[in-house]
């Protein structure tokens, strides 16, 4: 029987779906469920003598009493809220400006995507070089214009490490918002702008009553996606500060990753990841619900 004949069979659509479903089952669903069960088990690769037995809520109790967990949780909140707001505001500003459609703005809308396509490792090192305490160009500029008296070690100071990493993350991530919000702005029907003009709406009223309601769905979707990836991905912090100095910029995803990759404590790492997972599910659900309620 040829493939062409096969495609005439009733369930042929499942032939198309099976490869992707098998892959997703193997590399997403199976690991996730196993990770959940792992969080209730002992598993240390460097301590095989402990076995992989069921330990109930042991890791969760340990986590509750772990000051680093609470510190990381607080840092995660600061990190995610700060970076999301920064990226959103810069992205929205960019989109509103570029949407004026002046000559050259299309090229600008492509050029600003550059940071977003850069690898974390390169984005991190670009900024590490620019903020270097001995030879960084930003320190040089800040000293020249009189903001700083002398070069400052941004990533080595516990008060500025997380903030400096946030600046790098905002630079890296704002084009995502700019790109999608701009697409949303372009889809706003012209008639809406015209009727707003007839009603004598100023720029602010136009933004509040015409643009924002039209963008609402995109804003909700982009914020959810961005929060998820910021909570999950410790890459930038790992590259820039490694969570330090001390634990000043430690976030939960990085803590979980280091527990596994440095201490080989898979059980405890999985419990930390579970907290992230449940937290994200709760956040996504509430956020989508609340923004729909507001809409109605």
């Amino acid at each position, binding site marked *: 029987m040829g493939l062409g*004949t096969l495609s005439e069979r009733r369930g042929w659509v499942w032939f198309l779906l099976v490869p*992707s479903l098998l892959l997703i089952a193997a590399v997403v669903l199976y690991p*996730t469920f196993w990770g959940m069960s792992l969080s209730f088990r002992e598993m240390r690769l460097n301590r095989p003598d402990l076995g992989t037995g069921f330990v109930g809520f042991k890791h969760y109790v340990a986590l509750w009493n772990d000051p680093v967990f609470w510190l990381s949780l607080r840092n995660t909140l600061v990190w995610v809220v700060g970076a999301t707001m920064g990226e959103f505001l810069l992205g929205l500003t960019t989109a509103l400006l570029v949407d004026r459609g002046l000559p050259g703005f299309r090229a600008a809308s492509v050029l600003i995507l550059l940071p977003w396509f850069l690898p974390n490792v390169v984005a991190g090192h670009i900024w590490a070089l620019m903020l270097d305490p001995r030879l960084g160009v930003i320190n040089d500029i800040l000293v020249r214009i009189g903001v700083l008296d002398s070069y400052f070690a941004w990533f080595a100071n516990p008060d500025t490490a997380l903030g400096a990493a946030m600046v790098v993350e905002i630079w890296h991530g704002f084009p995502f918002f700019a790109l999608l919000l701009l*697409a949303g702005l372009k889809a706003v029907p012209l008639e809406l702008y015209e009727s707003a003009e007839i009603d004598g709406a100023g720029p602010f009223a136009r933004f509040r009553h015409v643009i924002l309601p039209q963008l609402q769905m995109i804003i909700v979707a982009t914020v959810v996606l961005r929060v998820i990836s910021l909570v999950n991905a410790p890459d930038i912090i790992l590259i820039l500060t490694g969570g330090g100095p001390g634990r000043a910029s430690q976030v939960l995803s990085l803590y979980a990753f280091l527990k596994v990759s440095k201490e080989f404590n898979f059980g405890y790492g999985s419990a930390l990841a579970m907290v992230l997972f449940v937290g994200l599910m709760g956040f996504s659900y509430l956020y989508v619900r609340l923004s729909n309620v507001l809409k109605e």
Partner: protein
Amino acid sequence: MGAKHRRLIGNLLAYGAVILIVALSVLPVLWTFLISIKPDEEVITATLTYLPKRPVWDNYVSIWTRSGFPQLILNSAITTAVTVAICTTAGTLAAYAVARTRFAGRQKILLLYLAVRMFPAVMIVIPLFITLRNVGLLDSRFGLALAYTSFLLPVFIWMMKGFFDAIPPELEEAARIDGASRLTAMVRVILPLVLGGLVATSVFVAIGAWNEYLFALMVTSSSGSRTWPVGLQLMVGEFQLPWGELAAGGMISIAPVVILFAIVQRALVRGLTAGAVKG
């Protein structure tokens, strides 16, 4: 002040702000390029020089001849190619199915493809590490590519779905009336029409795989499979890599990303924003 004047001033301010934002996006990369073509004595100086007095390519030569750098690039290229191959095969079929056929359970399947995008990477990487170890794929380029499909396949399917959606539904029917099988209609009629979108989506997935750091750090441990982001980061830690060489390594590594992006940017932007425009 008349409306015309206000508009002019508004436009001038907009130009100023847009130029500032573009500068913010591009200048850090340009600065890194300048560092990469400066000789050492111009990088490590008491007074910072902005433009290189004597541009040289030495840093590019020394990072490339440093032990293992070409191997890192090769490993990344192979891992990326395998990831793209898996995603285009499985993903194109799946995207075609959900975009252009109607079947019971379609909504649930769509939701599944969307939901798996929300699973935490940290959550997946821990058990995936053990799974790959058990099946003997840990520290291999194929194993890493499989790990990458966990977050790139769902993205691929959603982007490709957008491109398939944009084609009028009558085309398959017309082909079927002419006696083509469903398979022929898909391969001969529809696929050629989404070729641009397929290339753009593949490039997006390729960039994602090429750039990835965290999974690679976890899954690879030897020079036979280690990718460039992990390798470059290791060199920074172990050999106190000189700035010029670090910058040159970064420039070499992002060159393919920038070139590929420049080639397909129109279709890529269309694919990335298709969902947004429909609302």
